[in-house]
Every structure is written in C-alpha cells, then in structure tokens.
C-alpha cells in the first residue's frame, strides 16, 4: 500500500518497450521511499527490461519514469546520481582489486575520496572480504564477485537500489550476507527494488511484492493482499504467484 505522506522513490507511468514483441506494455508502478519491493514474474515477463529502463540502460518507447521526483528520462544524470544498479552478472573488472574497483566507482559518482575510502573499508569488512581487498578479482568465486559488485553499488550510498536477480548462483552463506546488507540499507532509509525467482526471499524480505506478466503489473501488495487477490488465503507465495499468473493468462 502506498503511504500518501511518504515521498515516492519511483513512479512509472505507461511505460512501454517493444523488441520483436512488446516486452513492457503500458506498465504503471509506484514505490514508496524506504520500501523493500520485490518484482516477480515468469521468464520473459518484462522485469529486467523495466528495471533497465529505470536505471537508464535502455530507452523506453513511451511512458514516464520519475525517481524521487526527478524525471529520469529528461535528467538521466541527476537520476543516476541517486541510484545504483546491480545485475545477476557481477559488473566488475578482473584486473582490479576490490579497493581499486570501489575507488573507481567513487570517482564515477563523484564521492569525496576520504569518505569513499572509509565506506569502502566498512563495506569490505561487512561483506567479509578484508583478506581479499588487495587481490585482483580474477580469482574470485561467483559469490565474492557479487559481493564486490554489491559493495560497488553501495559505496556511493544510493537512495534507490535496483537489483536484478542478485542472489543467482550464490551459496547460502553469501546469499544471507547480501540479504542482511540489503535489509540494513532499507532500515537506514534506502529503497530497494529487486527481481528474484526465489519466492522465499520475496516472502521473507519484501514489504510489498509486484507480479508482472506480459509486460504489465497484474497484481501488487503485501503477501496477504496478494493471497486475497488470488483467492487463496493461507497458501504459499508460490501457489499465489502461479494462480495470479494463470489467471492473467486466461484473461489474456
């Protein structure tokens, strides 16, 4: 549920993007500041395309995107200044060390050097990477690479953190660390939007869950609200999700 007194972290209106077929089809979405929002949907539903447009990585065909009141299509640099994007494929450089990587990102986002260094140390310690801070990332495991990328997404303290399947391929320990860090960020006032295929994560972590199918938002709300919408009180998110998607397919 949207709180009228809270500012909107993200507002999307009539967003559309077409490749060979419509990938996002007139999507409307509003997310409160300080909210942990999870986006669910079957493969090819348009989740990643939507988030890539929000992050400024893809130009929409039509529609409007507003990030904390900034028109992200008219002022992309200003919008990017307060956002971070993290995909399932860690965006790091094999030949840089975590500290060099974080220094580079701090440079890109124009963060003061001393402040960035202090944050980098905290993040590296927080993610359990102290012993590897000065090693090149080329020998890192998938989990370590994802942690370095997450540190990069957080070093400039974004107000809106967008994550596309951040837990894919992580072991249980690493996944828990990432989830803890994200939850703490939300507690500190940041907004998180995350896509995931792990329904348990959405169930446990999200304040609200949105379900996308065929490029449109077909349902959203808390888990209880979604259950009511699906007419399946008391069942798991998996049942609820599958029912909602099936209902949408019948309607379509």
């Amino acid at each position, binding site marked *: 549920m949207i709180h009228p007194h809270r500012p909107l972290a993200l507002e999307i209106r009539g967003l559309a993007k077409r490749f060979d077929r419509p990938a996002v089809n007139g999507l409307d979405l509003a997310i409160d500041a300080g909210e942990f929002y999870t986006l669910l949907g079957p493969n090819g539903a348009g989740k990643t395309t939507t988030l890539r447009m929000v992050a400024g990585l893809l130009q929409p065909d039509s529609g409007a995107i507003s990030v904390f009141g900034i028109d992200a299509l008219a002022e992309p640099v200003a919008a990017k200044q307060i956002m971070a994007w993290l995909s399932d494929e860690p965006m790091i450089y094999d030949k840089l060390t975590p500290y060099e990587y974080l220094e580079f990102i701090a440079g890109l986002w124009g963060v003061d050097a001393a402040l960035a260094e202090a944050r980098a140390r905290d993040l590296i310690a927080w993610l359990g990477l102290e012993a590897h801070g*000065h090693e090149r990332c080329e020998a890192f495991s998938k989990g370590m690479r994802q942690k370095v990328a997450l540190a990069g997404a957080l070093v400039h303290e974004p107000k809106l953190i967008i994550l596309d399947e951040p837990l894919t391929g992580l072991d249980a320990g690493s996944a828990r660390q990432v989830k803890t860090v994200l939850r703490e960020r939300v507690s500190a006032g940041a907004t998180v939007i995350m896509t995931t295929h792990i329904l348990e994560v959405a169930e446990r972590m999200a304040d609200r869950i949105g379900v996308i199918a065929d490029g449109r938002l077909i349902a959203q709300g808390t888990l209880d609200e979604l259950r009511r919408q699906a007419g399946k009180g008391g069942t798991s998110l998996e049942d609820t999700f599958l029912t909602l998607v099936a209902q949408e397919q019948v309607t379509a």
Partner: protein
Amino acid sequence: MTRSGSLAWFARHELRLSWRDWMHMLTAGDRRRKRSVFIALALFAAFMHLIAYVTVAAYAGAARDPDKLTLVVVTGSALLSWALMLSQAMESVTRAFYARADLDLILSSPVSATRLFAVRIAAMALAIALMGVFLAAPFIDVLALLGGWRWLGAYGVVVAMGVTAAALAVALTVALFRTIGPKRTRLIAQIVAAMIGAAFVIGLQVAAILSYGTLSRFAVLHSATLLKHAPDVGSMLWWPARAALGDGADLVIVSGGSLALLAAAIVIFSPRFGEHAIAAAGVSATVTRQRARGGFRGTSPRRALRRKEWTLLRRDPWLVSQTLMQLLYLLPPALLLWRSFAHGTHSLALLVPVLVMAAGQLAGGLAWLAISGEDAPDLVSSAPVGARDLLRAKIEAVMGGIAIVFAPFALGLALISPTDAVSAVLAIMAAAASATAIQLWFRTQARRSHFRRRQTSSRVATFAEAFSSIAWAATGALAAAGTWFALMPGLFALGTVAFARMISPARA
C-alpha cells in the same frame, strides 16, 4: 561413420568447429553475408594478383639452377615469413593451453585426451600452413603463370614452412612450460613470440642501418659481404629455396622433413598436453595481490575512467602480444634516429611513415579495448556521467597512450629535423584519431578477452582503419619530403574516414 573417440572422429569434430569458426570470422556471424563475403574475397584475390604481378613478374624467369644471390634473397624472404609463422604458431599453442573452451569437457570425459591433442597440434599446423598459402598464393600463381608450372613447388615449401613453424612452436612452448611454469609462460611466451616475429626483420634493418644508413632490409640481402660469407650453392641450407624454384627432389626432402618434424612433435608432446592444460587452468585461480597504495585519490569521473583504462591496459595479459611486435618494429627507426643524430644527417623522411603506421595500428587496438572491450558496460552506463563525457574520457585514455609511446620519437626528430617532426606529429595524430574514430563508430559490446578477434566484428572497420593508416603514413612521408603531393593521400585518408562514418552502424 568414424568410431567415437578415435583420431578420425576427433579430426572431424575439430574440422567442423574450425570451419564454423572461419565462417563466423568471415561473415561476423551473419550467414546472409556469405555470398557478399565470397565476392569480396574474390575481388581481393584479384587485386592481390595484380599487386603480385607488379612485384614479382620480373623474377618469373629465374633459372632452375639459381646463382648464390637468388638463393640468398629467396631464403632471406622465406625466413622473414617463417619467423612470422613461428610467432603466430607460438601464440596459437599458448592460447590452446590457456583458453578453457571445451577442455574441461574433454579432459573429464573417458576418451583419450592424447588423441584430441594430437589432432589439435595437427590442426594448428594446418591453420598456420593454410594462412601462409593464402598470403603467398597470388605471388606463386603469377610466377607459375609467367614462369612455368615448376613454381607450384613453392606451395609445398610454404606448407612445409607452416608445418615446421607449428612443430617448433609446440616444442618451444612446452619447454617454456617445463622451465618457468604455467603462470609465467603465458606472458613470456607472448614476448618470445613477438620477438621471434620481429627479430629477423629488425636484425636485417639494424644491419642495414649500421652498414648503409637505410631501413631497407633488402640492402643486407643484396650485400657483397653477405654473399661472400654465405655457403656454396650446393649447401643443404638452400634446399627450401631450390624447392621453391622448382627442384622436385629438394621439394620432396623439404616436405618430408617438415612432416617428420610435425609427427615427432605430435608423438612427443601430445601425451603431456593435457597435463599442461590442467596446470594452465590453475593459473586463473592464482591470487595476484596488488601493493596497497596510500588511500583513495579524489578525482573527477573522467579522470577515474582514464585511470581505470590505463590500469587495465597495463594489466592486460594478451595485450603484450598484440602490441609488442608493433613496438618492436619501432626499434630500427629509433636506431636510425639515433644514428642520424650522431652523424648529423637531416633527411629522415623515411622514418615518418613507419611511425605513422605504428601509431594508427596501436591506436586502433587501444581504442577497441577502451570502447568496445568494456567489461562492465552496465556499470559505466548507470553512472551519473553523460554518454559524451564517457566516450571523451575513453578517447583521452587512448590518445594519452599514443602520446606516451610516440612523444620520445617526436622529440628526437624535432632535435634533428623540426620539419620532419611537425609532419610526423600531425600525421601520427591524424592516424591515431582516424583509427579511434572508426573504432568508435563501429563499436560493439565485447569482452576484453576477445581482443584478438576484434577484426571479425566488422570487416569494413578493419579495412577502413588499415587504409586510413596507410594513407596518413604516405601523407606524412610526402609532407616531410616537402611536396604538395602530400595532399592526395591526405584527401584519400579523409575520404576513407568519411566513408566509414557514412556506412557505420553509429550513423544508421
């Protein structure tokens, strides 16, 4: 049907992969282009035959019983090509060790890996030999058409050269593996390969500079001193040259010898190839610690990007082999410069095109790495930096690298001949800017590790880059010679760049 796991089965598998690889290289993955690619290849072959006619037609009547001078020139030219083949083969062998591709699958399967590696060594030899044949074909065809079928024996010599180079490359690389270990072999093998490729040319040029004050490598091959010290015409050293000139008996010996060498390399080294490949696989898991610097440096986004590009260029393991040879080729010009300075010579116009060509090629490679070979494109695109600023920073990184390499030459030239220096600097800047612009317009998204295959993404970009570098080199040379004819290649270079811009995807 071949039995699975047999030599023939592996050979069929390798041939199929190689064929598809080649087709992908030629068509850049677009099967619809096949016809236009074959038409372009036919036109290119016709053009090369024309060039060959102009270059070698006069030698078609060379006697079957050649004199010592002919043998020296033919052998010297063959050695130049062979050194390049050996260099190429060493790079292929090194890549076969370090590129994982399907090795994990093969090594974990219950078939004999020795057979696969035997086939792979043979495939490498075949690839090197075919490349040699492809490049030599126009010259051999012209000689055969004008001088008789005996010249076709030269094809056999080219194949023998390729096969010998591959066999020796396997032996050299395995020797490096055993002596210095897998971690250092990757870097050292590239350096050795580059040095081997350049050594013979550089050696001849250095001798020519010191003896005759010229860069021409043929000055040494034609020299009386060399002829005096060369072995008699009956020596076995001249067998390959004699075979190329149509001596059937020598052709049989040369071909047989090279095949025996390859067979020996396969028998001796293929059983150990798997072990070395496994050892090489462990290298990527080896931890490389960087020395911690004293704190973060405050910087602007553009400077951060430039610094990142330079750091990655410095640490790129494959870049060495791609640029070292170009840099090594700059040694003779540097020597000529130094010698001219010492002797008070002021005519250095012949240096200018060498420097300009090298600058164009180097800039093209660096620009591809910085612009197309961005390993974290989403990260950079999601940063609060305008797209124009991002590209500007990357272009500055490339041009900065070119400035670092060529500034000493420009300074040296300026001390001896300011006019030549001005011509060189302007042409270097134009060649580097043209190559960078072409890479910018034809940019694709690729991994840095695909650097070696950068030419495959766009043939047009590759040719445009080469033609503009050649044209700027001619412009620089003619400008240094003080003639207004410099305008002609200059206009051609600008036309090439404009044409590339017109048909580039960036424009579309």
